[in-house]
């Protein structure tokens, strides 16, 4: 199975908005194409957040079923299809995570923080995904550790800024500054390579 943003994508492969259009007409093959494109990424994200294969599978299934149910409500003006899917998955995973005791969540995040953004890509066939992975890993590695921790607790841990502040015993303003500085650094590093608003995954780079 192919995974990643445009894994194996050729010029003949429909872009995400086209898949959404076909899904609105009831075309389940379009849903499958979207799953082939993003299923691996969504499962990986869910697994990183919930730390359990069975729960991650639930999140994955729920994400694509919700996208099928909500295919007529997706608003392209509010972002890309991939953002939409990742938003559904992340919210669902964090909901599951938040049903666990707070301290268990912190222990889990501490355990998961090491080594999750490292290692060689497992799918060398997905050329775009390999380049993107390398870029993101390098960008994260360049961040000061306190900024990286703030980002990971926020995104993968599902913690609010106030909760992170309490957990790290740092003023709320400090946590907000770390988060903003980290995002600014990532934005600058990734901007040239990634921010191409007119290109949807699934379309070949010129």
């Amino acid at each position, binding site marked *: 199975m192919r995974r990643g943003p445009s894994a194996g994508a050729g010029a003949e492969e429909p872009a995400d908005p086209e898949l959404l259009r076909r899904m609105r007409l009831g075309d389940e093959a379009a*849903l499958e194409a979207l799953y082939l494109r993003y299923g*691996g990424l969504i499962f990986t994200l869910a697994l990183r957040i919930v730390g359990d294969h069975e729960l991650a599978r639930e999140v994955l299934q729920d994400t694509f079923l919700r996208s099928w149910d909500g295919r007529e409500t997706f608003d392209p003006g509010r972002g*890309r299809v991939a953002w939409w899917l*990742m938003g559904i998955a992340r919210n669902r995973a964090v909901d599951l995570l938040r049903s666990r005791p707070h301290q268990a969540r912190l222990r889990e995040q501490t355990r998961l923080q090491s080594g999750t*953004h490292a290692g060689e890509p497992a799918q060398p066939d997905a050329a775009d995904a390999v380049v993107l992975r390398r870029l993101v890993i390098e960008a994260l590695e360049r961040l000061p550790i306190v900024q990286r921790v703030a980002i990971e607790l926020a995104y993968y841990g599902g913690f*609010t800024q106030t909760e992170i502040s309490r957990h790290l015993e740092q003023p709320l303003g400090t946590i907000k500054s770390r988060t903003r500085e980290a*995002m600014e650094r990532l934005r600058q590093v990734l901007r040239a390579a990634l921010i191409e608003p007119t290109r949807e995954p699934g379309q070949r780079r010129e």
Partner: protein
Amino acid sequence: MSDEHPVEDLAAYALGSVDAVDNARIEAHVVDCAACAARLRDYEFVVSALPYGLVPVPPPPEAWTTISASAQIQTPRKSRRRSRSRLPAWLRVARWPALAALLALLVIWNVTLERELTRRSPGPAPGPEVEALSRRPGRVIILGGTGAPNASARIFVAVDGGGHLAVSGLPPLQRERTYQLWFVRTGRPAVSAATFRVDSSGRAWVKVEPSVSLDDVRMIMVTEEPASGSPTPTGGDLLIARPWP
């Protein structure tokens, strides 16, 4: 629009890490502030790139099978809803009396069923609460024996919640075991609706409290579990109903 740009909060908002109280304030601001909207869009793109930095893990193959099967179940339901709106005018007028007649038949059927079970069952007779429940509009679902081929059951779920289960043909259990009724949803844990035991003739009448909508349920089943009940089904399915109109 607030004159103060929520500069410190935009990054946290994109990460989904803003306290609930600040969410509305930020959303209201970016509607009217092009600069903050553009910055937020950049941050959202960065956030969407973060998962690409994770070591990829392939999803289990059965995940797509479940998604595909559920999507196929949902599609006809939506089609049915659309087709109703295309009914001719005379049929749209006539459908309400027909629905009322159907509900009346349903109530009569439930009362008859209740009386029949009361007459035949040596177990605890359904009380006034269950009798009242039977007279409410709702849906009846038949469960067929799978692991227990001679067993059958009917479950009635009232439209405003609550319901009851009438079972026959299940073997009586030892003291340390119980039967458990489950509402199984797609991609979520199954929900227990009741635990029960049957009398010496294999029958039971059980009040159930479904905490989920039938629209979210893809299967109802009965399993055998330890006496205290299980958080998730551990025994094989004895009775099953799926999917229903």
